[in-house]
């Protein structure tokens, strides 16, 4: 029962804010209170799931696989906690005095509804509800794109809408084929039934699902909606999206990975998609001058690492994928929040127009340094452990090509971070005069500092978190009867 309350709370808050339309400050207080409660509850759920318990809620008490069942195991708990934390930081960063009263008032209800969709997606036990929750997230993100209300945001939204709607169509078609051969869409039930089904339809159905999720996760041939839209979003919302939206695709791929084991060719496809995304994403990032465009191409590259590890389909590979996904969410959100401060204080999205002499730049430079070193994978920070795990997993599986691609991509990652550093934080001898000297807007580093602290804590706790992720991977891949009974919810 408490589980249902947990995921209905953001929906109720969203509806309340939408109908009531309170002043920006009050709306902010309510949202912060609710999201603080969600963070606390998410940590409690994660602690409960830690010892292998699976929380479940069956709607209307219909026994699964007939009724709708919501379950939270270790994997779900990790992503729920991640989203709750990111939502809280986003709400802290989204202030009426820095981003405008109207923006804040418009964004709050939509953020809450998107949270409802994301929690639903991380909890649901069946594929059809996963589709419904995807659509909830999509509709609220389509509306969040229009929050700035400019022509650029209107035009930039078009590719995202067309590509994602097509991906949703693929998702539905895949569901139709899988239901036709398996007779169930409950994930645990489908894992049991998929074994003896006809090969062609199974390959087609699962292939469509993989294509739909790869679009969500923004892998290379399907990624171009992301760099088009993220620069125009309200910056803190972009930070949240960069952290969690691609991870929704990754999470769905993780969930269906026991099904993919029946069609090994799809795993190979994921390996190659991951490797190419890792290298091409970072090369595309290097050539950008708009800060947030650069960062979003960079996400393509980092998600490539995750998907390559996922495509290995070993327990260690999946554990590495989970750990790296969490690490990347925190780090990329931090970089977007730093980008927000830089863009507002310089009055431009373009790196070439940024000035290192802005007040507060020392704080920003420190935060950026922590995040950039974590992203590049330097030893004391989380990126090092994540990359080490993924390299080791591909070494164990003998994926030498993938390993080589990732190592090269790593070097370019460092280069792209240096590019941002050089433009935004370093003294430039030429063009000193040409830099605009308009007064900087309000500098509010709270959210950035919170995220930096989170990265440090995440790095210090890398051992326990990796162990948690490893157990989550075992739980996901375990298709024996006992674990499936747990996922169905009838403990």
């Amino acid at each position, binding site marked *: 029962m408490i589980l249902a309350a947990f995921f209905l709370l953001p929906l109720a808050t969203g509806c309340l804010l939408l109908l009531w339309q309170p002043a920006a400050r009050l709306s902010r207080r309510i949202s912060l209170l609710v999201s603080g409660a969600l963070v606390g509850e998410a940590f409690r759920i994660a602690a409960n799931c830690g010892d292998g318990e699976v929380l479940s809620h069956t709607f209307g008490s219909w026994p699964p696989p007939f009724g709708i069942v919501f379950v939270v195991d270790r994997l779900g708990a990790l992503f729920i906690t991640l989203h709750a934390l990111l939502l809280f930081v986003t709400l802290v960063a989204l202030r009426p005095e*820095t*981003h*405008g*009263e*109207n*923006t*804040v008032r418009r964004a709050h209800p939509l953020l809450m509804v998107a949270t409802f969709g994301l929690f639903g997606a991380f909890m649901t036990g069946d594929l*059809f509800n996963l*589709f*419904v929750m995807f*659509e909830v997230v*999509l*509709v609220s993100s*389509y*509306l969040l794109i*229009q929050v*700035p*209300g*400019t*022509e*650029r945001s*209107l*035009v*930039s*939204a*078009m*590719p995202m*809408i*067309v590509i994602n*709607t*097509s991906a*949703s*169509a*693929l998702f*539905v*078609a895949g*569901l*139709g*084929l899988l*239901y*036709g051969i398996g007779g169930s869409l409950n994930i645990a039930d489908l894992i049991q039934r998929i074994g003896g089904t006809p090969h062609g339809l199974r390959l087609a159905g699962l292939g469509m699902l993989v294509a739909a999720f790869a679009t969500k996760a923004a892998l290379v041939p399907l990624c171009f909606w992301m760099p*088009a839209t993220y620069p125009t979003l*309200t*910056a803190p919302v972009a930070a949240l999206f960069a952290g969690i939206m691609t991870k929704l695709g990754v999470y769905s791929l993780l969930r269906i990975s026991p099904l993919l084991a029946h069609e090994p060719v799809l795993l190979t496809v994921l390996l190659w998609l991951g490797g190419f995304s890792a290298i091409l994403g970072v090369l595309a990032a290097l050539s950008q*001058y*708009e800060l947030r*465009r650069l960062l979003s191409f960079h996400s393509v590259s980092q998600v490539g690492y995750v998907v390559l590890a996922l495509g290995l389909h070993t327990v260690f590979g999946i554990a590495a994928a989970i750990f790296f996904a969490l690490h990347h969410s925190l780090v990329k959100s931090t970089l977007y929040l730093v980008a927000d401060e830089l*863009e*507002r204080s310089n*009055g*431009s*999205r*373009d790196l070439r127009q940024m000035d290192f002499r802005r007040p507060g730049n020392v704080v920003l430079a420190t935060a950026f340094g922590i995040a950039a070193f974590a992203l590049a994978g330097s030893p004391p920070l989380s990126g090092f452990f994540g990359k080490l795990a993924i390299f080791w997993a591909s070494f164990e599986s003998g994926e030498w090509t993938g390993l080589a691609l990732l190592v090269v991509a790593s070097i370019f990652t460092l280069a792209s971070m240096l590019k941002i550093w050089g433009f935004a934080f370093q003294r430039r001898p030429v063009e000193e005069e040409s830099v*605009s000297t*308009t007064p900087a*807007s309000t500098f509010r580093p709270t959210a950035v500092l919170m995220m930096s602290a989170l990265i440090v804590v995440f790095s210090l706790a890398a051992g326990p978190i990796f162990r948690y992720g490893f157990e989550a991977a075992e739980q996901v891949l375990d298709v024996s009867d006992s674990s499936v009974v747990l996922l169905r919810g009838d403990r």
Partner: protein
Amino acid sequence: MIPVLAASVFLLLAAGVYLVLQTSLLRVALGLALVSHSVHLILLTSGRRGAVAPVLLPGAGTEGVTDPLPQAFVLTAIVIAMAMTVYLFAALAALAKRGERMEVEPVPDSDEARAPETVRAELEGKVTGP
């Protein structure tokens, strides 16, 4: 029944893909609606293997009865597709209202063509748009 449904899926999908590939955004929106409906038919078909009777009647047995679950799925999916179509049309209306052409155009990748004041106002959320 299956061949008829399969043919309908093919026709709807072909027409939908053709429209999505046009340059007019209005046609793209209509095409996406057609594509959605073609996949709804796929979902519907998945519950109709050899089915002849529409509903499960008391005492009539389960022989040849349609699976009701895909019908529930399709209802949900239709509502979602309608919401997406409405959103697209609203976005197109907003474009038209601003005097923009409703055509597929390259996405702007920089603010170079825009005034610095506009960009600054946008970043600080001081734009009052739709």
